Each structure stands twice: as structure tokens, then as C-alpha cells.
């Protein structure tokens, strides 16, 4: 099957006698070195997913670049790897989070939640003294020594506190114990995990509590308000109240409905998706935001395109003097960062102190950002100011690529200026800018920074059950619900962004299908 390989046909990268091969060898060696380093870095961190990905990628890369059967793959592999890392992984992760209850109160996995509950329930017993602490190493095990009632006592994880023979006491502190080494601060720090985790029982009776330390110098008597039963997966309080793990909610729940904090992340199925429609508090604003998102995106594209194209046509005419200067000035708004410009406009549009009302309109009292309809108008106007330079630029470029002969032919045929524009210039213009209009629509549909900086979604619906406003588009609504409602709900936010992704994807697909028809005019 494979063509006979003769030395003359061998590529630079396969011929051992030419430098190209060694360049390839060094490059692939570097890739391998980095990959192996990454794999070894994963092992102590126990990142098995990343490790598997690196192993597979490395094997694929080595196969592709050393085999002569995978020539197209040599060109595609780098791009595909980046696609997997930066696009597919992000999308899959978002989709995964959308099916979990990840958010406030469900921030980590179950074992972390159990550890944290045990940590916070281990509390100092009120009214007990603190003791200056001596940390000992007794036969390789950490032990605590304190002075209690004038007597030196030592204990460790296995043996409760007991009087120690042959201990030296100075003041309130034990300084020496027979058969054990006193650890200094540096050594304590080396073994801080052991020291912090150590609980020395005060007596044989667990009800008397235990000795623990937070800093290695002072110890106090603590007791746990909760006990964990690993087999039953329950926490029990001192007075017998049982909190049982509920795997569907990711919480420890008691029979009376009270819960322990924190919970953990669990899969909740389609709850996040159905919540948007079943929760009446969300459904209303969702529809309103959806309508306004479309109106905003469509109107933004139309107004900026109309204005940009008009200016481009006018300033494309050789009779206009100083075109270069005008064109440079028109591009200025494009040179400002959009969110900075939005903030400046917010100040300009302030009702009582803004430049627009105070100076331009001579002290008028127009509530630009506080009234629903005016706020929408303000957003469209500011976005027009921000967006027309882009349209102006692309239209100028497209106009200059339209051959002059076509216009001349129109003149020869006796077509007036409007007819020439409508039948020649505009269709040819649309062929090249239509895809940009679609991308502009997709951009404005998710134009979070403008909405957030200019109105913050406001004015809010009075008395609405969610902090949502009349100018909230879908993406700013997601932000408000997921992050501003006081409780971060990453799961719900992911589910909503998937819906937005579907909407934008659908529109773009339909749009690109339509633009193919435009190309038929050529």
C-alpha cells in the first residue's frame, strides 16, 4: 500500500542525514520531557484525571510524529489538543457543574465536610483553664506534658494524662521528662500536623474531655459536641439528636429538618434546569429578560450597522475632504475599553449631577437610568456610541473591495444613486459583513460588561422576589441570581449558561445558513 520509500523522497524530518530530523527529535523530546514532568507532578497531588490525559496525549503525540501513517494528524494534533483543553474541557466541566448543587454550603466533597463538622464541633469546655504546654517526643510518638495542680502530667494519643516520674517543672511549665525528648518550636513546626491532631484524654472517662493545642505553646480542655459514626454515616449530639447523611441533598439532616453545616457536592440531576421554569419567582423575570436580550442584541446590531455603514459610505466618497482625519476620529470610541466607557457614561447620565442633564439639556430632570424605558434607550444609545466604529471599519474595508466598474456599469444603465446602493453596494457589502453581524449579535447577546457597568440591570422591579431589573439581559440575570442573591449557586448558573449557549448557538447556525443565500448574488 505505502509508496516505495526511496531516500530522495524522504522528507526533511525523516532523513537521518539532514538537520530537519534532529530539529524534530529535539522538539519532540522537549514535549516528552514536559509531559513526563507533568505526569510525575500529578502523582503526589493524586490528580489521576490529569495524569490519564497527559499519558494519552503523550502517546498520541509520539505516535503521530514518529509514524509515517499519520500525516494529516501531524498538522491537526496541536490544534486538537488545545481545543480539548480550552474548549471541550471547559464545556464538559460547565455541563457537569450544571447537574450538581455546587454553590454556597456545598463547596467541597463529603470527607472535607465531615472533617470540617468535626473540627468546628470540637470546642473548649467553658470555665476550664489553659495550660502552658510542653510537647514531647516519646518513642517516636508525640506526647503532651502539662502542670496540673502542681504536678507534672504526661499523656499521648493512647494513654490519658498521668503523673510523670522524674519530670522537672519550672514555674507553670514542664521543662524535662525522663525518657522523652522535649521538642522546641522548630521541631514542633516540622510535625505540626501530628501536634495539632493530637487529643490527649484528661482521664479514662471520655466525658471529661481531652487536651489539645492550636499553637504548640498553650493547651486547653476541649470536648466534642458531636460524635461521628462512620458505619451508620451519622452525627449524634450529646443529647441524642441524630443527623443522618442525605446523599440526595448533600447534607446531614436531623428528623426535625435541621441540618449541619457545611454540606457537600452531590449530583442533583435536572433540578437546576427545571428550577428556571418551575420556580414562579424565576420564570417571569426569565421571560422578560429573554425578550429584552433579543431586542437589545438585534437593535444594537441594526443601529450600529446602520450608522457605521452610513458613515462609511459617506466617507468613502472621494469628494469629502479630510477623510483620513474624520476616519481617525470615528475610530476613537473603539479605542476606549468598553467597561470604562460604560462607567463614564453612567456618570454623564446621572439624573441630578450628570453632564447630559446639567449642561447639554440645561438643567433638565430626565431620569435616564432610573426609568425602565429610558434606561433601555440609554443602553442602546451608549452601545451605539461604542459599537458604530467597528461597523464603520468593516464597512469601509468592504466598500473599498467592491470594484468600481460595477458602479460605473450601474451609471451606464441609468440607475440613480439609491438604486445603485440598493442593488449593487448593499448586497455586495452584506456578503462580506453578514458573518460579522452574526458574531456581533452573539457578542451583544452576552454583552455583560455594558449592562453591569451602565445600569447594573436596574431599575429593579419594585418588590420583585429576586434582585432583577428591567435592563437585565440573560447573562446579567444569571450573574444576579447566581452571585448577587446572597448565595452563590454555581450549579444553577452553569445550567442557565448552557441554555444561553443553546440559544446563541441556534441563532448563529440559522444565521450562517441564511448568509449562504447571500453569496448567490455573486
Amino acid at each position, binding site marked *: 500500500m505505502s509508496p516505495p*520509500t526511496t531516500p530522495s523522497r524522504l522528507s526533511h524530518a525523516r532523513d*537521518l542525514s539532514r538537520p530537519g530530523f534532529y530539529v524534530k*527529535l529535539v522538539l519532540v*523530546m522537549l514535549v*516528552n*520531557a514536559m509531559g*513526563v*514532568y507533568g505526569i*510525575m507532578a500529578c502523582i503526589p497531588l493524586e490528580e489521576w484525571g490529569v495524569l490519564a490525559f497527559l499519558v494519552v496525549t503523550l502517546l498520541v503525540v509520539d505516535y503521530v510524529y*514518529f*509514524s*509515517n501513517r499519520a500525516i494529516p494528524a501531524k498538522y491537526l494534533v496541536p490544534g486538537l489538543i488545545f481545543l480539548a483543553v480550552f474548549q471541550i474541557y471547559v464545556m464538559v466541566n460547565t455541563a457537569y457543574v450544571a447537574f450538581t448543587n455546587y454553590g*454556597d*454550603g456545598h*463547596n467541597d*466533597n463529603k470527607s*472535607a*465536610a465531615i472533617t*470540617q463538622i468535626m*473540627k*468546628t464541633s470540637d*470546642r*473548649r469546655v467553658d470555665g476550664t483553664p489553659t495550660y502552658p504546654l510542653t510537647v514531647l517526643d516519646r518513642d517516636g510518638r508525640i506526647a503532651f506534658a502539662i502542670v496540673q495542680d502542681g504536678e507534672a502530667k504526661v499523656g499521648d494519643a493512647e494513654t490519658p494524662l498521668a503523673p510523670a516520674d522524674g519530670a522537672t517543672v519550672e514555674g507553670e511549665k514542664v521543662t524535662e521528662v525522663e525518657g522523652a525528648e522535649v521538642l*522546641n*518550636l*522548630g*521541631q*514542633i*513546626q*516540622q510535625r*505540626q500536623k501530628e501536634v*495539632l491532631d493530637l487529643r490527649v484524654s484528661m482521664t479514662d472517662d471520655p466525658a471529661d474531655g481531652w487536651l489539645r493545642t*492550636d*499553637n*504548640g*505553646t*498553650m493547651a*486547653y480542655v476541649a470536648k466534642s459536641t458531636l460524635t461521628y459514626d462512620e458505619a451508620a454515616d451519622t452525627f449524634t449530639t450529646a443529647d441524642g439528636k441524630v443527623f443522618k447523611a442525605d446523599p440526595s441533598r448533600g447534607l446531614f439532616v436531623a428528623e426535625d429538618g435541621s441540618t449541619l*453545616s*457545611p454540606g457537600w457536592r452531590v449530583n442533583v440531576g435536572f433540578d437546576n434546569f427545571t428550577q428556571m421554569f418551575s420556580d414562579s*419567582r424565576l420564570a417571569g423575570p426569565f421571560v422578560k429578560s429573554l425578550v429584552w436580550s433579543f431586542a437589545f442584541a438585534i437593535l444594537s446590531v441594526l443601529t450600529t450597522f446602520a450608522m457605521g455603514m452610513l458613515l462609511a459610505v459617506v466617507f468613502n466618497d472621494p469628494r469629502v475632504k479630510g477623510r483620513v482625519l474624520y476616519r481617525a476620529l470615528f475610530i476613537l470610541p473603539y479605542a476606549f475599553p468598553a467597561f470604562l466607557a460604560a462607567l463614564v457614561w453612567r456618570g454623564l447620565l*446621572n*439624573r*441630578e*449631577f*450628570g453632564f447630559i442633564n446639567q449642561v447639554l439639556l440645561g438643567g433638565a430632570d430626565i431620569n435616564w*437610568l*432610573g426609568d425602565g424605558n429610558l434606561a433601555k434607550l440609554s443602553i442602546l444609545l451608549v452601545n451605539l456610541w461604542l459599537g458604530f466604529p467597528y461597523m464603520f471599519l468593516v464597512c469601509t474595508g468592504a466598500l473599498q473591495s467592491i470594484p468600481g466598474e460595477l458602479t460605473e456599469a450601474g451609471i451606464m444603465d441609468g440607475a440613480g444613486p439609491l438604486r445603485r446602493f440598493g442593488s449593487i453596494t448593499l448586497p455586495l457589502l452584506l456578503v462580506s459583513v453578514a458573518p460579522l453581524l452574526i458574531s456581533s449579535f452573539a457578542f451583544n447577546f452576552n454583552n455583560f460588561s455594558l449592562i453591569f457597568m451602565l445600569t*447594573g440591570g436596574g*431599575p*429593579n422591579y*419594585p*418588590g*420583585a*422576589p429576586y*434582585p432583577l431589573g428591567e435592563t437585565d439581559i440573560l447573562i446579567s440575570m444569571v450573574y444576579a441570581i447566581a452571585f448577587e*442573591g*446572597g*448565595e*452563590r449557586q454555581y450549579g444553577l448558573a452553569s445550567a442557565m449558561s448552557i441554555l444561553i449557549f443553546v440559544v446563541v448557538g441556534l441563532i448563529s447556525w440559522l444565521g450562517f445558513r441564511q448568509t449562504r443565500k447571500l453569496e448567490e448574488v455573486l
Partner: protein
Amino acid sequence: MRKSLIAVATAGLTLSLAACGGGSGTSTSTPTTGVASPEATTASSPATSAPAATGSLTVWVDETRIDAFKQLGSAFQASTGVSLDVVQKPSQDIKTDFIAQAPTGEGPDLIVGAHDWVGDLQANGVIAPVELGDAVSGFNEIAIRGFTFDGQLYGVPYATENIGLVRNNGMVQDTPATFDELIAQGKAVEGAQFPVVIQQGAEGDAYHLYPVQTSFGASVFKVDADGAYTTELGMAGPEGEAFAAYLKKMADEKVVSASLGADQAKQAFLDKKTPYIVTGVWNIKDFQDAGIDVSVVPVPSAGGQPSAPFVGVQGVYLSSKSENALLANQFLEYLATPEAQDKLYEFAGRTPALTASADKVKDPILNGFAEAGKYGQPMPAIAAMGAVWKYWGAAELSIIEGKAEPAVAWQAMVKNINDAIAAA
């Protein structure tokens, strides 16, 4: 041909493996020396009975406090040998980033923040309890109550702050006892456009209105016998609605408006368009730099009871995922000493949370704020508080803007807040 290629490929892999092996050899040896060196130093200096601890702690601090903590860090290092790696984070991101990163093990050992984060941080299991022992009694009681959640202390406070009424002594000299008289006095001042300003802005600002609200006896939540907040709303009912009606009156008198945000209110005071502003210590320096002689007094009562602003407490939280908990606890213990609190007062200029240090403060402005916050309460720290702020500010704004009847808007707000708390 193919065989030779495979051989070369294997050679390449082996080479890269070998190169990597060398690299990993050094990388594994680094921790070994890292472990060995402190022991070596402690062993080589047996003369000192308690060798200084070594190591470093990572602290996240926002832009307003970074300098103070850098200076405190050098003082701490001088006395203990532990260095403080102070990392600046934007103030609006610090809490969210900490919650997201702590579980990954990438978070800091300590963060500096406000006490009202405690509910949120505790609900996410990212902070560890702190045991100060008897040192607790030396602190301002409000400060300790602020950092206490569910009966457990979760941080060490270092400063308290609250808002008060700031007066331009060049325009008026004495302040009346009631808010009505204050408005009348302010209106009579020549050249003043506003009798007094309370910042609001496009999203409302319940925090700055709270002293007026509490003078009607409408505290945000009811408190239990220990002074801890319950989840029962104190502002539901006739007291809250009386305040709502008064708020409308304040809007009519131009004390509050949606276009008077923080910047505009401050500018109005700087431009001498108002003799009074309700604000905090953070603006005082700018006022004084502008040559205005200011005094701080309590906000006069509008509803008959004394005004009680929220008291914000600043402090340091310990991450529950800290690998350096022992050192971090030593730092927190240091933070609870008068020495550290005096230093932070010197560096940051806020009222210390430790009573012994606060008593030493002789600054008339800070003492004025302390007087204004005499009846203050810590801001509630329950996790649903974020939702409360939003509804609260939005409802007040709709009253100010005249979009809703005060009592109707207030009742809708109470219902929404109760729903949000029940859902949380």
C-alpha cells in the same frame, strides 16, 4: 526503516525520561534539604533555649489594608522569625476567591476581612474556629460578637468602624437632637442645596440609612438574650413602616435620592452644598485635606429612640485548609496582644478592637465615631444576608423614587426577605 524509527523513538523517550529523571532528582532533593535545614539550624544553635520558628504564612489582604499588614508582618517577623507573605486581592473578590480556592489547597493561610463574612465562610466550611482563651475578655464585646457564629469564635478582630454624622463646622456649629430639627437647621443654612446628605445610588444603600431606621426601633433582626441575632425580622411591623413613611419625607426634603451615590454625596459635602453628611471614617481625610473643619456626632434620632448604626469589625480569619495552622495560630495570638493592636492602629488609623488599645486613642474624630456607635450592633453575618441587603436597598430606593407606596413596598420587602431566609 520503520524499525529504526521505532528505535529512535524509544531512544528519544529514554533520553527525555533520563533528562526528566535528573530534573526530578533535584526536585525531590529540594524538599529534603528544606526539611533538613530548620533542624540543622535548631541543632546548630542549641544555646538559645527557644529557637525562633521559621516559615512563612500567606495572608490575603485588600488594597486598603495592605500597607498596614505589610508593616505588621515585618514586626511579627522581627519578634518570631516567621515571615508574612502579604498578597493583595481586590476587596470585592477576596471572599469569593477564598471560598472557591480553599478546597483546592491553593488558598492562603489567613485572610483579612469584615466580620459579616463569617456566616458565608462558615457555611462553606473554609474557616477554622479560633481559641483565644481568656484573651477574649479584653476585646470590645461587639467585636467578639461579630466574629462569633453559632457559639464559636472564627477570627481575631483588630478594628471596629461605624458611620456617624459629620458636620462642617464652618457652616453650622451645634447639632440639634432630632432629625426633623436637623433638616430645618440645614435648610436654613445659606448656600446649602441639601440640609443633610445620606448616600444612596442606583441600588439603594440600607447601610447608610440604618441609623435613622433604628431610631424607630426597627432593627434588622431581633436579638436574643445573649445579644446574638435571630432570623426573625425586627423591621417587620409598624416600626418599620413608620420608618418607610419617614424615608419618603426625607426624599421629599432632598436628604436622599437615587442620584446621590457615594461619590456625589461626598462631592456635595466637599463643595459645601450641605452642612452634614452621614458617612464613615474613610472619608474624613479627604474632607480635612480640602480644608474643611469637621466634627463627628451621633446621628440625631428621627423616631424617638437613639440611633444605632451597624458596627463593622475587621479581623483575620484562619483557613480550615491551612497547612501551617500552628504558625497561623501563633500569629492570631500575636494579633490579640495590645502591642499588635497598637501597631495596627498606628498603621491603619481605625479604632482598635482590643479595649486596652482603644482606650489609648485620643483622636477626637475617632472618639466621635465611637460615640456615634455607642448603641451600635454588629452587622448580621447569616449567610442569607446578601439577599437581605439587595431587597432592603431596592425597597428603600423604590420608596425614595416614589415608585411604590412606602408601606406597600416595605411589606413586599419583608415577605421577600423572609422567603429568601427560608429558602437558604
